[in-house]
């Protein structure tokens, strides 16, 4: 790994200021550090989790409108920026209907699970060098484990709704997520294997250097293939088109969310979009150098890029991946449920195993990395 050239305006320049504020707080409230630290991080995460979907829904609608030769929301706020806030408000004030014969407890528990799962994963995303709520050593395993929670929510929703469409959607979704999680895990495993660490921050730091050191461009061709694999499996994991068979509005009307209304529907909807952000964030972390500034080897551009704070790069890369997800959604038709299973078990899984083996081969060869 090459050392990142120090430049006069890097994030490290701000440490004295940060430390100054920190010291002041520590002197004034000697015992408060523990509480304040966690309080600030939790509050900012809450803020992020609740504001992100509002923006992402607006973005999705605008991107869709662009693809479809129309304008999208234009009335509420500048270019419709407040449209999704207005929609969210509407959903909050709407009556929550519960179908007859539904399991009340499970019916209302279900939307909470995906929402909380996304919140938990957000906690370990490395937004910047030191902007990360927690960095557990087994971060990758944590991500994989927690993302299983959202599928639980969908399964429960389908089961508790007392509706055949919901049940069909939930069962489809269950089968789909369990299968694609394997591919997703294998792609992550490849990177974990190559970097030798499961901490998300360490994975980002392993890509220091120029753009060519990002995992997507490393391992001649294989990195790119791994990235594409990740995109396919994560799209399926997110239940987004062309893999949105669990919602499939033209077949199952609303899939697992058919019977949901008001805020409980909004929670599914919001979780879906935060999930998309998390998934894109992980793609950026694993393959696109996370918060690292892209160094393309041109003398007068590199320092300029390095001045821009890391979290800006992180968000830029994440939104690039999100744009890819949206591009898929507004271009492709939907796969059928058996074709989806065929794709996973007979095509993606063997390909992933092969990828893992070739990754191991490159590791054994050493120097190429």
């Amino acid at each position: 790994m090459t050392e990142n050239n120090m430049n006069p305006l890097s994030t490290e320049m701000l440490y004295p200021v940060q430390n100054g504020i920190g010291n002041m707080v520590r002197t004034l409230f000697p015992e408060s550090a523990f509480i304040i630290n966690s309080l600030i991080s939790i509050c900012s995460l809450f803020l992020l989790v609740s504001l992100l979907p509002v923006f992402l829904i607006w973005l999705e609608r605008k991107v869709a409108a662009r693809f479809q030769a129309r304008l999208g929301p234009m009335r509420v706020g500048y270019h419709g920026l407040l449209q999704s806030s207005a929609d969210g408000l509407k959903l909050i004030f709407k009556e929550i209907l519960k179908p007859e014969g539904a399991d009340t407890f499970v019916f209302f528990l279900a939307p909470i699970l995906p929402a909380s799962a996304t919140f938990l994963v957000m906690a370990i995303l490395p937004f910047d060098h030191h902007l990360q709520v927690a960095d557990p050593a087994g971060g990758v395993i944590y991500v994989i484990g927690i993302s299983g929670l959202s599928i639980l929510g969908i399964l429960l929703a389908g089961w508790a709704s007392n509706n055949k469409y919901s049940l069909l959607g939930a069962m489809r979704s269950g089968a789909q997520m369990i299968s694609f999680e394997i591919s997703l895990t294998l792609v992550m495993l490849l990177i974990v294997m190559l970097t030798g660490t499961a901490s998300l921050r360490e994975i980002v730091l392993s890509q220091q250097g120029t753009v060519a050191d990002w995992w997507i461009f490393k391992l001649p061709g294989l990195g790119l293939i791994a990235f594409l694999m990740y995109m396919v499996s994560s799209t399926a994991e997110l239940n987004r088109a062309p893999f949105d068979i669990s919602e499939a509005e033209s077949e199952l009307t609303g899939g697992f969310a058919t019977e949901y209304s008001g805020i409980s529907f909004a929670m599914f909807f919001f979780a879906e979009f935060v999930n998309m952000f998390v998934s894109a964030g992980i793609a950026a972390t694993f393959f696109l150098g996370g918060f690292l500034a892209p160094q393309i080897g041109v003398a007068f551009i590199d320092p300029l890029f390095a001045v821009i704070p890391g979290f800006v790069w992180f968000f830029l890369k994440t939104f690039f991946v999100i744009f890819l997800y949206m591009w898929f959604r507004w271009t492709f038709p939907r796969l059928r449920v058996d074709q989806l299973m065929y794709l996973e078990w007979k095509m993606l899984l063997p390909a992933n195993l092969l990828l893992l083996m070739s990754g191991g081969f490159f590791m054994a060869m050493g120097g190429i990395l």
Partner: protein
Amino acid sequence: MNLEPVNNFNPDEGGIPEGFSRTSSATKSSEEYFLNMGPQHPSTHGVLRLVLRLDGESVLGVVPHLGYVHRGLEKVAENQTYLQNIHLTDRLDYLSSHINNLGYCMAMEQALDIGIPERGEYIRVMICELQRIQSHLLWWGVSGMDLGAITTFLYGFKERELITDIFEELCGARLTMNFFRPGGSFADVTDGFIPRIKQVIEIMHKALDEYNTLLTGNIIFQERTKNIGILSKETALSYGCSGAVLRASGVSYDVRKNDPYSIYDRFEFDVPIGSIGDCFDRYCLKIEEMAQSVRILEQAVQTFPEGPYRSQQKAVYKLPKGSYYSQVETARGLLGTYIVAEGGPKPYRVKFRSPSFSNLNILNELAVGHKLADIVTILATLDFVVPDLDR
């Protein structure tokens, strides 16, 4: 969760839903259930209700239930004058209302022996072909949406809008036109008519390429439609299918070619036919039909004559006693109009033979053995309009 096995299915007073027999082809170990699809369902295109017998995702049987938009148009027609009835035909298959008007007017012209001036015939052919393209564009967009590609819906509507604008300029209406009259049409075309059609021709050439890039060539789309809902030649003929559904199964029958009406025999166009009759064949056929309609328009624009647009105008038409039949090729297939007259200003009986009704009958034949998602594909390519089913 309340999934009752077939034996205990008790929607009203015991028994299983209407149209199904108690025994089924599924094995004992499977758990069958019935699913009600519609009348409020996104992909039944209106208020069609299907009752499905499913085993998991596999379809064991389909029974369509009609009648949710039955308006008794044929009965209404008995109580109105012949001229007033033209607007009723708009409401059969609202996507080809011009062509429906034409079928009804042709039956009247046959009864009264009315001739149509040259310009009137040209106007009819051009408008009917525009209508066919317009209807197919809507079908293309909607069937893409049924398969999950929502963008196609808006692409289809983008081009459709141009044609709808032409109609709006002609007769003020965008959907239910009521434009043709016995002996021609109720008004002459505007000055902008021909330039606008030329514009449509130009755009359609590009648009069809775009559609093929966006949807036809897509691997997921082909996987979803190929070998789904295969309709054999014999089945198609025995059920009385017509239009693209029949032609996709390899039967070359188009009323415009086989029983030419108006001045269709003067134009050069092909009748595309399919090979195996699956959903993909039906889809490709409709795309090709749009290209052929553009071809007819190109020829008509070249030789569009001057002169009167209507041969005669009357406030009340009285058809002589007898029965009259005419048939036209709508965007969906063969529309037959049968009028029984008793000499008065009102018909004794009017009967429409609608293409959607005959085409929907084969649904069960096509759907059994496929997955739930394939029902949506099959419905999309059968391309029916619900008011045309019920009348």
